[in-house]
């Protein structure tokens, strides 16, 4: 396996982007990444997208995006693992470069979610759950994470204010991210008094419906040196599945897919969680960030909410999480989210994070965790400044 580096990043402003089409959103981010890397060619492209078919009626998007990117006959593929599609695109591109099959690969992600009604989006997102044994009974995605939240609160005493502190922290970070969908601060009271979606989760516990795209360029460390870019290597990649249905899991208060994917990434990197300076994790709901922080081993089981409330995961905390604003504030265009995480991680590792959200301790090693459904697919990557 060859050493692989990320040499280019591209991401547009995320949000309710009515004026831009599905294809233009992607091409814009892809061109930004190509320009940032300074490469004059691509050997291949992998795009994460959960469901272009249900959101804009467009499948076969690898062909469309390669065409509109101006790369005639480029080998391109779309990969799908629900909300982990972006992370999967990152891993697929990594394997392709590491294997020697291709030298310069674009890993992208895109989702255009606001061309359908809220009900249409709820339906499209619910396809990531078990249609016959969860969705059939009226379960929604906020509902599935609410079931985890109640189980966690019952077992560990996690509180309403602990959940809220995650949203408050992520909005604080996102207020400094020019690409965030909701770059404004909120208070614990705002979250506690927001509209109930699926008890105990309120609207400000939930990540939004978002249009957006992101792209990164992966290449060999040798080529990266010639490009004169900071060398940020991918040193660990872990991928794991778990049961599709939440009720099939032995423990509803952990995310085993995350634990296993992280273990695989750590083993590959020769690292432990203690070696990680900060992380971008999949906070599709506030409870998700709390459980993920425990399943990654950052905090002991049951201590994720306590730590969040104490500020341990803030920019100045012992283990900063979601410096970008996370899915909560930055937005969650499902197929693009995993690549959006990579964009933030690279910015932080380059020392380029905007508006005062740059971590001060010269972070060297970062982790990103991206998951699909109620945790049925998880990707964990570890990146390090060479």
């Amino acid at each position, binding site marked *: 396996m060859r050493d692989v580096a990320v040499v280019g990043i591209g991401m547009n402003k995320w949000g309710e982007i009515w004026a831009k089409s599905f294809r233009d959103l992607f091409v814009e981010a892809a061109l930004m990444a190509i320009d940032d890397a300074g490469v004059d060619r691509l050997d291949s492209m992998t795009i994460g997208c959960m469901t272009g078919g249900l959101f804009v009626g467009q499948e076969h998007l690898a062909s469309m995006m390669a065409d509109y990117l101006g790369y005639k006959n480029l080998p391109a593929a779309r990969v799908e693992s629900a909300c982990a599609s972006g992370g999967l695109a990152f891993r697929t591109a990594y394997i392709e470069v590491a294997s020697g099959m291709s030298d310069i690969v674009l890993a992208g992600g895109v989702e255009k979610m606001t061309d359908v009604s809220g*009900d249409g989006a*709820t*339906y499209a997102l*619910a396809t990531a759950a078990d249609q*016959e*044994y*969860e*969705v*059939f*009974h*009226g*379960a*929604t995605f*906020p*509902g599935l994470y*609410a*079931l*985890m*939240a*109640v*189980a966690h609160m*019952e077992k560990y005493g996690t509180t309403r204010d602990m959940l809220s502190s995650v949203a408050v922290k992520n909005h604080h970070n996102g207020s400094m991210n020019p690409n965030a969908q909701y770059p404004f601060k909120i208070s614990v009271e705002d979250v506690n008094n927001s*509209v*109930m*979606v*699926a*008890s*105990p*989760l309120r609207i400000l516990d939930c990540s939004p419906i978002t249009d957006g795209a992101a792209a990164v360029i992966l290449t060999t460390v040798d080529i990266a040196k010639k490009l004169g870019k900071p060398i940020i290597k991918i040193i660990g990649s872990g991928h794991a599945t778990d049961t599709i*249905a*939440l*009720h*099939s899991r032995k423990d*509803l208060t952990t995310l085993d897919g995350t634990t296993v994917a992280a273990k695989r990434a750590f083993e590959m990197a020769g690292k432990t969680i203690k070696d990680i300076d900060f992380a971008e994790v999949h906070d599709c709901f506030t409870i998700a960030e709390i459980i993920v922080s425990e399943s990654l081993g950052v905090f002991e089981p049951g201590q994720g909410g306590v730590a969040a409330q104490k500020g341990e995961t803030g920019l100045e905390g012992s283990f900063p999480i979601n410096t970008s604003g996370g899915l909560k504030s930055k937005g969650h265009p499902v197929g693009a989210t995993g690549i959006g995480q990579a964009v933030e991680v690279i910015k932080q590792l380059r020392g380029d994070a905007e508006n005062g959200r740059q971590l001060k301790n010269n972070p060297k090693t970062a982790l990103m965790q991206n998951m699909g459904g109620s945790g049925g697919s998880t990707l964990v990557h570890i990146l390090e400044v060479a």
Partner: protein
Amino acid sequence: MFPSRIWREKAQRYRLEAGKCTKCGYIAFPPRLICPECGVREFETITLPDTGKIVTYTVIRVAPSQFTDEAPYAVGIAELANGVKIMAQIADCKVEDIKVGMEVVIEFRRVQTDGHHGVLSYGYKFVPKWY
């Protein structure tokens, strides 16, 4: 919703039929072709017990279109007497009265209607065990 999709699940939704692994005893609901615990492919058909305890629940207020008339409604996971966990709506009680640990009975109920003229989908719901 196409009738074939509902028809395929009728043994589970109407009769709670599950598969029990003939080697390790793992109970698959819905039935599976291969045991995820031991890899054996032979199962015997059993019926799930019709009582259990709620292990977690939520009250859904923002509902998918086919459930908007019922919102707010509760969805929960119950652990049955044999340890199997299944998901269903919790009916016949005030949502405020639902608690983790509450004993429930699984009853045959209508779950979805496909508009005014579509197929009625039947299945199971949890109801509080009052007796």
